[in-house]
């Protein structure tokens, strides 16, 4: 693919995502963007700044599981300053007091308690009616069935059996009673697109993605259940070359996806991203 051709493809993805951001901001009363500090999340921030001509007009939310890699906290403060982010941080203190953790509990329980539960609590606290998420269709077969605008009930449940139709640029524009709408500007992007875009736009990212001693992280989650993959790729160019060759799926290193059949569906139906 020629350089121009690739630019064109990325520009199309970018411009569509910007449109999704703007439609969300115009349609909903109160928008928030959860921020995992991972690559997709960082691309979202960049796109939001482009959509709103420099400054993001809504808050970001970091659900801190307390199991983040130490480097992520450093990155959080750095990125917050660079992008002028209005950041809300939430921890499920109650679950931690109850001793929920990876040493004693299975990953599905911990993910639910430390991510999904505090997310729901924050939504109730701030009364957001739209949440912008960085999920992509190529990550997981259930995500492949997602809409740009995906309503969630007051309990955070995804009614995947009865999703609203979406065509000709018309989306679900009102949240269900007491619920919210997930807005998903990156649906059409692939992992490779993300990295090519990061390279093109020079978007800041944690260095955990780059190989040290022959291993690197392809997807970042809680450190006890996120495993690095064998890779010599120590810079963006090398990551891009690697992705063009690879046959290993991206979330292979994320344990909570692989606990039994349809673990991801079960997590997501209950409100996980």
């Amino acid at each position, binding site marked *: 693919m*020629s350089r121009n051709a690739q630019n064109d493809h990325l520009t199309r993805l970018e411009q569509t995502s*910007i449109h999704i951001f703007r439609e969300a901001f*115009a349609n909903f009363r109160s928008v928030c963007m959860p921020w995992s500090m991972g690559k997709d999340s960082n691309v979202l921030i960049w796109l939001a700044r482009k959509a709103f001509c420099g400054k993001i007009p809504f808050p970001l939310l970091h659900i801190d599981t307390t199991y983040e890699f130490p480097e992520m906290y450093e990155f959080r403060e750095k990125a917050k300053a660079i992008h002028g982010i209005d950041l809300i941080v939430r921890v499920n203190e109650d679950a931690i007091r109850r001793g929920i953790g990876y040493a004693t509990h299975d990953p599905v329980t911990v993910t639910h308690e430390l991510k999904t539960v505090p997310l729901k609590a924050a939504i109730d606290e701030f009364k957001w009616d739209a949440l912008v998420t960085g999920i992509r269709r190529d990550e997981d077969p259930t995500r492949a069935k997602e809409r740009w605008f995906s309503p969630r009930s007051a309990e955070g449940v995804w009614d995947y059996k009865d999703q*609203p139709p979406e065509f000709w640029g*018309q989306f679900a524009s009102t949240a269900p009673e007491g619920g919210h709408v997930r807005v998903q500007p990156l649906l059409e992007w692939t992992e490779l697109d993300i990295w090519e875009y990061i390279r093109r736009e020079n978007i800041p990212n944690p260095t955990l993605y780059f190989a040290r001693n022959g291993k690197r992280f392809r997807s970042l989650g809680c450190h006890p259940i996120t495993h690095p993959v064998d890779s010599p790729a120590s810079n963006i160019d090398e990551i891009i070359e690697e992705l063009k060759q690879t046959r290993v799926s991206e979330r292979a290193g994320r344990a909570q996806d692989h606990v039994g059949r349809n673990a991801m*569906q079960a997590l997501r139906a209950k409100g996980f991203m």
Partner: protein
Amino acid sequence: MSAPSANLSPQTSKSGSTDIEDLRKMHVVVVGHVDHGKSTFVGRLLHDTDSLPNGKIEQVRRNCAAEGMDFEYAFLLDALLEEQEQNITIDTTRIFFRTQKRAYAIIDAPGHKEFLKNMVTGAASASAALLLIDASEGVMDQSRRHAFLLSLLGVKQLVVLVNKMDLVKYDQATYEKIKTEYTAFLKSLGLTAVDFIPIAAKHGENIVNRSQPMSWWKGPTVAEALDNFRHEDDLTGLPLRLPISDIYRFDHRRIIAGRVEAGAIRPGEELIFQPGGRRSTVRTFEDWPGPSREVAGTGDSANFTLTEQIFAERGQVVSHIHNQPRVGREFRARIFWLGKEPLQTNKTYRLRLLTQNVEAVVAKVEKITDAATLESIQATSVPRDSICEVTIRAARPIAFDLHHECAITGRFAVEDAGRINGGGIILEARTEKTTREGKVTSAERAARAGHAPAVIWFTGLSGSGKSTIAENVERRLFDAGRQVVRVDGDDLRTALNRDLGFSAADRAESVRRASAVAGLFANAGKITLVTLIAPLAADRAKARAALANHPFIEVFVDAPLEICESRDVKGLYAKARRGEIAEFTGITSPYEAPESPEVHIRTDKVSTDEAVKLVLDALDKIQESKAEDWEV
């Protein structure tokens, strides 16, 4: 990105080289009757093109074995438990994959009647379709209904896959019979299939690899047919259509944001905003992090400022002056209806066309067609999953094109109780009935003017600059096509208020009369500018109360007395100082400065232009929030 891609690379000029085709992802939807093998086909396509991640097939095989189910390629797509248990696709799945030639998004649509809305969702974003027909079962209801929907959704490239040929012993005659029957059906919809390819999805025959038992087939494999699909035409050459998404004022800039749906837009170009018909010129693009682009082409999300600040709002369609969309309230349309409740006449729905969102009714149902049989249905309301021709009447004017002129502005969605339940294409514009019953309402006036009325009340010392600013504001509003009128205190004194002097009581009466006059004008739909010294806070408070049913902007035109006196345009201060005028405000009579005016202008500190802008901005803010209430 607006440049036609064919110009990007030199080696492409002659033969349309592969490099070009790489640019864009081709979206292909897979449709057809339930169980005709769509999901199996997509799974097999991924498998045969070597597009699955390591271990994926083995994982699905293991899961199936554990549950005691036969392995199905369909499970690669049908990822939901319910889907696997019932062996049926509930919602569309989009899978990305590449051939040598280019990247694809394959959209596996559900074939079950129950999930037609999901099929529409998948098909609406596709440039081409593969329609599967089970050779042993032949053409069924959804085979026909899906084709009808494809024609309405504007998916023009179609390849039919005659699947499960293994079940009919690869018999060419069976294939030919289906081809003949279905070709005739497609013809009645104005569609033609590029090809009919005989396949056996489950066994991977004629998908990537040619089938041994069907050596009689000399046409393309499915993979070859995919690579022959063409991208839809680039719309950059069409007239500009840019629906406004939003107007941003995060800082001093007022930025219009919207996606270019057709055509292109550049700084310096004169634009017209419909409905409303106001004009302005693109000043700059405001791209972050910069530098700003020089042109925004089709598909670009643009953000620009204007040279003239005119009233603009979400929903309006921006175009060039010489090639505008139509504006009207009534049109004839063909609608596909997906709602559980039938579509009814004289019930209020919301019509969504790009970023426009208005109330509308179906004034008349002309024809209802069963999409599976093409037979017409005799009914007064439109049942679920059928297609109808209707007359639609919107509550207020909208901007649109006829579908055959510009598809993107010629189609709309119908929303009922917050859910999108149907879609339609516009066939013909209707001129609306001009005679209506009853007295003219303020909403009707606002709809015609394109804006709500307002009262802008300028108060301040003699010589502070009230009239100068008001005259300039009037000029700007008038030129922008707005209904505006100016009521000047001096003019009132020569006629209506001839009997009044300058005592406190007379001043109170003068303010009362001025507010009464302003009220009449505002009731008639005008933006009314009042310039009156109105020195006493109590009198002004009464005026505001009397005009409470209109937006009211108090503008305090403020300059120190010495400055007003030094200006002394009418020589009044000199007279007052000489004692020739009694009770002159500021000299021998008090002026109570407003405590919280909507706009405060220090005319000794800002230019007239800046002052005018402050007033116009305040008005714009009010009118944008009022625009919602225009509906008639």
